[in-house]
């Protein structure tokens, strides 16, 4: 058990960002029925913009603002101009549409910033708590707190506010909601903006905790999907717990001889398990 502890603590950092990404996916899915494949690419582009801001000598708050604003802006543009064109198609086609956005954004990021190795350093990396031979850096602590806080905020928004009610109504039946007077485009706009904000925050944190690389960050949407599926694309607390579990299992898998070199398979295995255990989610997805 003592041997496991450092990896458990280390996995919590990555897991919290998987949880945050999973919540971002569930929010959009619950409001608009779209599984956003571009979530990782939006976060990656936001993170590269943040790196550029930090490289120019600007403060950390400016980098956070730039990352979140970039991801929100691009997400909003897609939600305004492309998503409505697919509004009448079924959920699968609307989700696959975001795959196109992911590839365009990933291609642009790789072309513009190139393949030179970069590192996104945040001042919060320098502080931390030492626990069981591992340092839980300030950035990892922020990830955990932000994941829980954003989950609580979204849960409140969906349950207690008028816009939350409209989002839930839209998720149930878009056509009927529109007939009843819900402004579909306006509610969709809020959902895309929220999803973009989650992508911006997650992208910046992952670029720091994991690595600043466009392709990797784009495909880190997979563990987030696994977390969302384990949350049955509905439950925010279950998605957060699933994200943390995926992060911790991926980290502790390094101790399994033979499996360690293939531990990136952990999210896939868990997602498959979830699809088998929750067949209704498979139909939803």
């Amino acid at each position, binding site marked *: 058990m003592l041997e496991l502890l450092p990896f458990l603590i280390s996995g919590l950092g990555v897991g919290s960002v998987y949880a945050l990404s999973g919540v971002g996916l569930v929010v959009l899915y619950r409001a608009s029925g779209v599984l956003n494949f571009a979530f990782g690419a939006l976060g990656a582009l936001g993170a590269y913009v943040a790196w550029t801001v930090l490289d120019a000598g600007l403060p950390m708050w400016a980098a956070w603002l730039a990352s979140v604003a970039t991801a929100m802006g691009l997400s909003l543009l897609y939600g305004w101009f492309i998503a409505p064109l697919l509004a009448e198609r079924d959920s699968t086609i609307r989700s696959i549409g975001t795959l196109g956005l992911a590839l365009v954004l990933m291609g642009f990021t790789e072309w513009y910033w190139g*393949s030179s*190795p*970069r590192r996104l350093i945040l001042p919060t990396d320098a502080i931390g708590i030492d626990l069981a031979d591992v340092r839980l850096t300030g950035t990892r602590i922020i990830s955990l707190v932000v994941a829980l806080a954003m989950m609580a905020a979204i849960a409140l928004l969906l349950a207690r506010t008028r816009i939350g009610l409209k989002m839930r109504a839209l998720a149930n039946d878009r056509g009927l909601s529109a007939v009843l007077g819900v402004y579909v485009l306006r509610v969709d706009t809020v959902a895309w903006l929220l999803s973009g904000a989650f992508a911006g925050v997650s992208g910046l944190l992952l670029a720091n*905790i994991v690595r600043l690389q466009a392709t990797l960050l784009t495909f880190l949407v997979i563990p987030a999907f696994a977390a969302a599926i384990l949350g049955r694309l509905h439950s925010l607390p279950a998605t957060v717990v699933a994200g943390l579990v995926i992060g911790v299992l991926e980290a502790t898998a390094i101790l399994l001889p033979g499996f360690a070199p293939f531990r990136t398979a952990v999210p896939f295995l868990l997602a498959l398990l979830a699809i088998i255990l929750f067949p209704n989610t498979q139909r939803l997805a």
Partner: protein
Amino acid sequence: MTNTLIQRGARAAALLVLLGAAMGASSAFAQNKPNCGLGNGKKATGEPIAIGAVVGKTGPDDFSASAASAAAYFRCVNDNGGINGRPVNYIVADDQWNPETASQVAAKLVRDNKVVAMAGSSSFVECGANAKLYAQEDVMVIAGTGVPRECFFSKNYAPVNTGPRVSATLVGAYAATAYKAKKMVCVIPNIPSLGNWACEGAKGWGKAHGVEVETLAIDPGSADATSVMLQAASKKPEVILLNVPKGIMVPMLAAAEQQGLNKKIHFVSTTPGYNSDVPKAIGPAWNNAFDLHLEFLPVESAGPDNSNWKAVMNAYADKDAPRDSFAQGGYLAARIVTDTLLKLDPKKLDRASVSAALRKVSGFKSDMLCKPFYVGNGARHNGNSSGPIAQVSGNGFKQIAACETAQEPELDDIRADEKKLGL
């Protein structure tokens, strides 16, 4: 009268200044003028000689710097009399990091373009895919950079670089001596034909010198570098040897720094860390604290051949073409092939005579190499098994140890071949 004298004096002084400036410029020009092939300044106009290269340009990483550098050298050769009057038609093919594509492009080069040899190749997949073809068709490959095991275990494939195994052996041996290490962990990506093989050399050296070297094979696609560093640190080593591409190395060093491991353990690396972007990317915590093996002398070194390489690149390559160790390898490969072809009768030049002549290459000297390079007639080739050690210094590197030659059990046959050649 006085005014006239002053005017004359001023004119004479101005003339002298101009003359001095012109002489300075011409001397600077002379220093920067590349020297290639026959060096006669005459454009080659005869029947072209086809030489090929296979590179992994598009894919997970761009491995085309070797061929870009070789292409610059061949363009310079063609402007300087070619191969005794015949220009080189240098054909570079991209294998897209796909073994099937690698086989297709190599077959086209060998069978359709009728190349007499290959020079400056640099690919992760082509050694395994094409070694048999090159042996069957008797085409010799003087590669700029070889990475997987197959590149060093083929009769017709002779890379100019040391390869990751020898590089790990040399930097491991250096670290053991410099830091009095008795325990090391060698981190390697779990990639076929690279995997454990590239750390086994350091292990073999360690066994003979009382140093325990443990291999940690990692999933290169994993996002979690912190766990890799914690796992390596849990073995309680004095040194962690990174034998990974730079894209994975930077986040590993970042994770190690965040965990404070850079203050407890020495970190060293094989040549992939020797990249001008790395010092800035890893940050000031690694200043004077990260050592690397170099497959050639530093790119900044002032030797005449290294200066000539840079002059060739300035005159004949794109402004943005990398000036790194891959490019050094490509230049050397092109020089070896050019020097060999120049010794042959241009009228009787064919694949058989070129391959035979390339196998006889021995004692090829360059100040970019620690020791003279050779090809030989052995069943496999690792003609460069030396190199110096550099350390991150500010936003660049400084050389901290002179050339050493690797000693490990797998090189025993190579040493026997060298003995036969009288080297």
